[in-house]
């Protein structure tokens, strides 16, 4: 194996275009990590450079599935954002949050646990950033009412959001990207990732109980403030609510069946967004569409093109050969390296650019291992599958490590700061790192047991 690797690496021509593309890639990532320039600007400019210099053609960048923008990811994200933006004014999210607080009877630990579970479940079906933007304001209000320190609540929610998001194809951008590249369907994620996430959440809540169970207490009169809230007042537009829920149910059914229907997840999401725009009676779509997070979407677009550049010049191939040389082609070792390396890498850099780089790398490794296979047979080779799941688990759960590990963390830290409850980087680490390690250990045991011991 090692000899094959050295033989193959000599095939990569490390000419001037290799070094130019590699420099653009490294510089772009360094700038993204440094946060000196907004990441979207870095991605757009880096992408434009790749095309202007001629590393990739515009045709490659816009239309190639191997080298260009992954429109599957873009359309899935923009469609889900549209659906949520139309639903929001109905008041459904305020309703869910207030109902949850009352369900916890205003008792502080129960509220913490219920909010974490609700956040995890919402995150499994909505974008994590969207979820925390919906749950954090209510959490601040509830903690104000109960006169509790809001910081443990906000952090435990965002951790739950990153855990829950790992459960499904649409839960977290890394999964969306992996699904698109590996051509995995919605049910594959339910079958392979949801079980481990359920176990992880149970352990998570149990750990929270040990840490916070006895420490939190509130006065009876403050509890009454929560019990006096009437969640039905949250529903501002019952007609819109009904329509949104029906369309959401149709969309979710579509996701479950998209493998059977031979439709891509992006198609399902686009259909849901189109249908809801049509039936919701939105007269002027301008506002709804403008509310999509265009900066995030263009960050993806730019990154895909930058990655396309380094795939074309052979950098990704070179990197995949190094990984294979390191693990000597042992796939169990590779998947463990991928999981733990992904976890720490995602804690430090944004997991979106990380996964965007890892996806072609894993595909390339597969090509080295099974040179005679192609298409789904190659991408979903039984021995390759644990690698995809390890990447998803590592990248998503690793986001919990630091305050900048996932977009949702950044958003929550921002909300906390504006509300006068700043969460320091250190404080976040104090919660994030132990839970990141705990969840990745559970995932390690799961992957090892399920795919290498039991082989089911």
């Amino acid at each position, binding site marked *: 194996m090692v000899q094959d690797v050295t033989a193959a690496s000599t095939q990569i021509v490390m000419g001037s275009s290799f070094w130019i593309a590699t420099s653009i890639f490294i510089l772009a990532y360094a700038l993204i990590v440094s946060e000196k320039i907004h990441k979207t600007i870095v991605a757009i400019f880096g992408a434009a450079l790749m095309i202007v210099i001629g590393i990739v053609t515009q045709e490659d960048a816009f239309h190639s599935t191997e080298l260009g923008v992954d429109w599957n990811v873009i359309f899935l994200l923009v469609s889900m954002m549209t659906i949520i933006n139309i639903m929001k004014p109905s008041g459904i*999210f305020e309703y869910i949050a207030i109902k949850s607080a009352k369900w916890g009877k205003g008792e502080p630990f129960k509220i913490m646990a219920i909010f974490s579970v609700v956040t995890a479940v919402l995150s499994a079906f909505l974008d994590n950033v969207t979820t925390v933007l919906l749950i*954090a*304001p*209510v959490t601040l*209000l509830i903690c*104000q009412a109960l006169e509790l320190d809001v910081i443990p609540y906000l952090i435990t929610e965002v951790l739950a959001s990153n855990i829950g998001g790992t459960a499904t194809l649409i839960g977290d951008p890394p999964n969306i990207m992996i699904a698109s590249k590996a051509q995995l369907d919605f049910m594959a994620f339910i079958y392979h990732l949801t079980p481990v996430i359920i176990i992880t959440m149970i352990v998570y809540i149990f750990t929270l109980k040990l840490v916070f169970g006895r420490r939190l207490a509130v006065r009876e009169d403050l509890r009454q403030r929560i019990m006096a*809230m009437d969640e039905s*007042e949250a529903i501002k537009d019952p007609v819109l609510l009904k329509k949104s829920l029906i369309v959401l149910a149709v969309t979710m059914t579509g996701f479950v069946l998209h493998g059977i229907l031979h439709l891509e997840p992006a198609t399902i999401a686009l259909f849901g967004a189109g249908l809801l725009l049509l039936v919701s009676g939105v007269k002027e779509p301008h506002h709804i569409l403008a509310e999509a997070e265009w900066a995030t979407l263009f960050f993806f677009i730019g990154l895909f093109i930058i990655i396309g550049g380094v795939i074309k010049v052979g950098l990704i191939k070179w990197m995949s050969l190094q990984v294979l040389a390191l693990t000597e082609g042992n796939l169990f070792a590779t998947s463990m390296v991928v999981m733990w390396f992904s976890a720490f890498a995602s804690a430090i850099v944004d997991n979106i650019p990380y996964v965007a780089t890892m996806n072609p790398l894993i595909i390339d490794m597969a090509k080295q291992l099974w040179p005679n296979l192609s298409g789904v047979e190659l991408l979903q080779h039984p021995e390759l599958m644990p690698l995809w799941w390890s990447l998803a688990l590592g990248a998503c759960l690793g986001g919990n490590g630091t305050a900048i590990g996932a977009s949702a963390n950044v958003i929550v830290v921002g*909300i906390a700061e*504006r509300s006068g409850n700043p969460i320091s980087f250190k404080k976040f680490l104090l919660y994030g790192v132990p839970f990141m390690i705990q969840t990745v250990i559970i995932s390690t045991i799961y992957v090892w047991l399920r795919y290498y011991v039991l082989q089911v």
Partner: protein
Amino acid sequence: MKAKDLMIPIHDYLTPDSSLKEAVNLFRTAVRGEQQVGVMGLTVLDAKRTLVGILSMTDILKAVYPSYMSMMNLGDFTWDGMLESLACQAGDKKVGDLMTRKVITAREDDPLMECVDNLLKNRVRRMPVLNKGGTVIGMIYLRDIFFAVTQAMLDESCKLR
């Protein structure tokens, strides 16, 4: 008419280090022009008497109104006494942290139309008026410009134009 003809001289001002409590006290006692007492906004000047910000009613309300309330529809879930208790807590906050730093100003020789243009486009009700040296010499109010408009409208000379 120009800005300086309509502005009202105000000698009271805040400093960035003042607390909100001190600020609202000064709002109550500040002398506007020759006879009126009480203002809803004051300039913030540093030790060198340079204009560094303006603090108005809106800034103070924002200091009490939680940022998370504006992110979702949560008005139905507030309780009696919430505003008052948050107001108490906000009393010790510093003017420097809450003032509007980008101050819309008028120069003393600006025509009134320029003043209205600035007030309406920036959605503010008052603007500090600066002399040629850049020192604050008074405040021009949207309300006073409105009175100037009503006067001009009803003036006899209107018919002649």
